[in-house]
C-alpha cells in the first residue's frame, strides 16, 4: 500500500494531483482556522470568494494556453457570460430551489453551459487562426461579449422572463423586477457564494482538468499543442480537439463567473473587460504554462498581494509591478535555465548509464 502510494507520488501525474488537492485543502483549513481565531480582517474575508473565482479562471485559461497552446486574450468574456447567466438563473429559480447552495450549484451549471455555448460560437471561427492572429481575435470577441452584455435588459414578472437588446422595450407587471438593466448591470441580488462553495468549485475544476490531461482526449489536445502536423498525421482531428479544449475552458470560466457574480450585490459588464483577461493570463504565465498547481498558487498570491501591500500605501502598485517583473525575469533567467538543463542532463546520463549497463551485461 505504502509502496504503491510512493510510486504514485513520484509519477508526474500523482505529484500534480497531490500538489493541487493538497494546496487547496491546506489553504482551506488554514483559512477556516484563521476565521475561527478572528485573525482575518473583513477586507481579507471579502477577498476569499474572488480568489476562488480567479483560481478557477486561471486553471481554465491554463487549459487553453498551457495545454492546448493557443493564446486567448478574451477569457473574461466567458466569465461575463457565466456571471450574468448565473444571476438570471438564481433569480428565476429563487422559488423552485429554496436551498441556497443547491441554487448556487444550479446557477453555476447554467452559467457554465451558457459560457460553453459562447465558447462554441467564438471557437468555431477563431480556432481556424494561428498564434498572434488568434490572440487578437479572441481579444475582439472578449470585447464584443462585454458590449453585448452591456446592452441586455432582462426582467421577470408573473408572466415569466422578458428580454430585450439596446433599449428596454418591455414593461413589467406589478411585482415584477429587473434582473439586468443594460449598462447599470445587476443590483440587489442576494449573494449566495461562500468560501466553501468556492473551494468546492476549485476542487471540481482541478478534478476534471487533471482527469482530462491524463486521458485519451487530453493527450490528443497536448499532441495538437506540440505538433499540429504530426497530430493530424496520426489520425487526430486537430479542429475537433482544439474546439473541445476551448469549450471546456470556457465552461469552467462561466462557472467561475457565476461564483464571482454571486458574491456581490451589484455587478456590471464593465468588470469583465480586457484588464481582467490580462490579469488572468498573468496568473497563468507566472504559475507556469500547463502547470495547474502553479496557476492555483499564482492566482491566489497575486490577488492577495495588493491587499497585503496596502500597508505600504502609495508604493503598493509599484512593488506589485516590481514583483511581477522579478518573477518574469526569474522564469527566463540563466539560473532557472541551468536548473532545467541539469534536470535534462541527469535524465540523459541515466539513459547512457542504462545503455552502458546493458552492453556490459
Amino acid at each position, binding site marked *: 500500500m505504502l509502496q504503491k502510494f510512493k510510486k504514485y507520488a513520484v509519477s508526474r501525474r500523482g505529484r500534480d494531483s497531490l500538489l493541487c488537492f493538497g494546496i487547496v485543502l491546506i489553504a482551506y483549513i488554514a483559512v477556516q482556522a484563521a476565521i475561527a481565531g478572528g485573525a482575518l480582517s473583513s477586507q481579507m474575508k471579502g477577498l476569499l470568494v474572488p480568489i476562488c473565482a480567479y483560481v478557477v479562471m486561471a486553471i481554465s485559461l491554463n487549459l487553453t494556453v498551457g495545454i492546448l497552446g493557443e493564446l486567448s486574450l478574451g477569457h473574461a468574456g466567458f466569465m461575463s457570460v457565466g456571471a450574468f447567466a448565473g444571476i438570471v438563473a438564481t433569480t428565476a429559480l429563487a422559488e423552485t430551489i429554496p436551498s441556497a447552495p443547491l441554487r448556487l450549484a444550479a446557477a453555476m451549471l447554467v452559467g457554465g453551459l451558457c459560457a460553453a455555448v459562447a465558447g462554441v460560437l467564438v471557437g468555431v471561427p477563431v480556432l481556424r487562426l494561428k498564434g498572434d492572429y488568434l490572440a487578437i481575435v479572441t481579444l475582439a470577441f472578449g470585447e464584443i461579449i462585454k458590449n453585448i452584455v452591456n446592452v441586455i435588459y432582462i426582467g421577470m414578472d408573473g408572466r415569466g422572463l422578458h428580454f430585450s437588446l439596446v433599449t428596454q422595450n418591455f414593461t413589467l407587471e406589478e411585482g415584477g423586477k429587473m434582473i439586468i438593466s443594460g449598462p447599470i448591470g445587476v443590483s440587489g441580488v442576494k449573494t449566495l457564494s461562500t468560501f466553501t462553495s468556492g473551494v468546492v468549485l476549485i476542487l471540481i475544476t482541478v478534478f476534471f482538468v487533471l482527469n482530462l490531461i491524463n486521458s*485519451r482526449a487530453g*493527450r490528443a489536445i497536448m499532441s495538437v499543442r*506540440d505538433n499540429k502536423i504530426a497530430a493530424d*498525421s496520426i489520425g487526430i482531428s486537430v479542429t475537433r480537439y482544439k474546439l473541445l479544449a476551448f469549450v471546456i475552458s470556457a465552461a469552467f470560466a462561466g462557472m467561475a463567473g457565476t461564483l464571482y457574480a454571486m458574491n456581490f450585490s451589484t455587478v456590471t459588464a464593465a468588470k469583465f473587460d480586457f484588464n481582467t483577461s490580462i490579469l488572468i493570463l498573468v496568473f497563468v504565465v507566472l504559475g507556469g504554462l500547463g502547470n495547474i498547481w502553479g496557476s492555483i498558487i499564482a492566482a491566489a498570491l497575486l490577488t492577495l498581494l495588493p491587499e497585503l501591500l496596502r500597508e505600504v500605501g502609495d508604493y503598493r502598485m509599484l512593488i506589485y509591478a516590481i514583483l511581477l517583473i522579478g518573477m518574469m525575469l526569474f522564469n527566463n533567467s540563466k539560473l532557472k535555465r541551468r536548473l532545467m538543463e541539469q534536470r535534462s542532463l541527469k535524465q540523459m546520463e541515466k*539513459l547512457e548509464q542504462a545503455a552502458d549497463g546493458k552492453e556490459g551485461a
Partner: protein
Amino acid sequence: MAMLEVTELGISFGGLRAVDELSMRIEKGGLVGLIGPNGAGKTTVFNMLTGVYRPTDGGIRLDGQNLVGKKPHEICKMGVARTFQNIRLFSNLSVLDNVKTGLHNEITYSLAESLFHLGSYRKKERAMDEKAMELLEVFDLGNVVDYRAANLPYGKQRKLEIARALATEPKLLLLDEPAAGMNPNETAELMETIEIVRRRFGVTVLLIEHDMKLVSGICEYLYVLNFGRLLAEGVPGAVLSNPEVVTAYLGE
C-alpha cells in the same frame, strides 16, 4: 490489384510544377524506395499521399479507395502512417505518451470516460500501456518510457517516430529519410529494424532516402524522381547503374 496506385499525380504551387505525371504501383508487403536529388519533389509526394497537400491532378488509391481530397487524419484512419524528414515528435510528452497518442483511434473510450476516469477508462488505458510498451520494446526504447521525447538522443527520436506511426496500425508506412543524420552503425541498425517491422507488422513500406547503401540494401524496387518527374524505375541494381540517374545525382 496493387495496394497503392498512384496515377498521373501532379501538383502546382502557383507557376511551379512541383510534381508532374507521377505514376507508381506498390504491391502489398513491398518495400519500395523513392529517391532523387534534393528538391526533386519526394517529400511533396509524401505530403500528397497523406493529405497535407491536395494534388492538382491525378489520383491516389489505397486498396481501391480514393485518397484525394481526404484530410490527413482521415487518411491515417484508412491506413497510411508516416514519419517526417525533420522529426516531429510531441516533444513535451513522455516517450510512452507519444506512442499512446498514436493509439488514439485504435483503443478508444468516450469523452465522459476521459473526464470522470470511470467505465472502461482503466481497462483501456492499461491496454494502451501494454500495446505501447510492446512497440517500444521492438525499438529498444523500453528503458526510456518516462523520458520527455525532446530529451532523447537523435537516433532514438527517429525510432520513436516510427513506433508512433506503427501504433496507428497502418497498412502503408511512409518513412521520410529515416537514416538522415545517422552514422553507419545506426544506419545498419535501422535497416535491421525496418526489416523486423515489415515482417512483424505485415506493413508495406515506402521510403525516401539518400543513403544508397540503405536503399540498395533493403529496397526491392525504386522510383527515381528528378524535377518532379519520374526519371527511372526498377530494381535497385539496374536503377542505380542507369546513366541518367547517375547524371541526375552527380551532374554531367
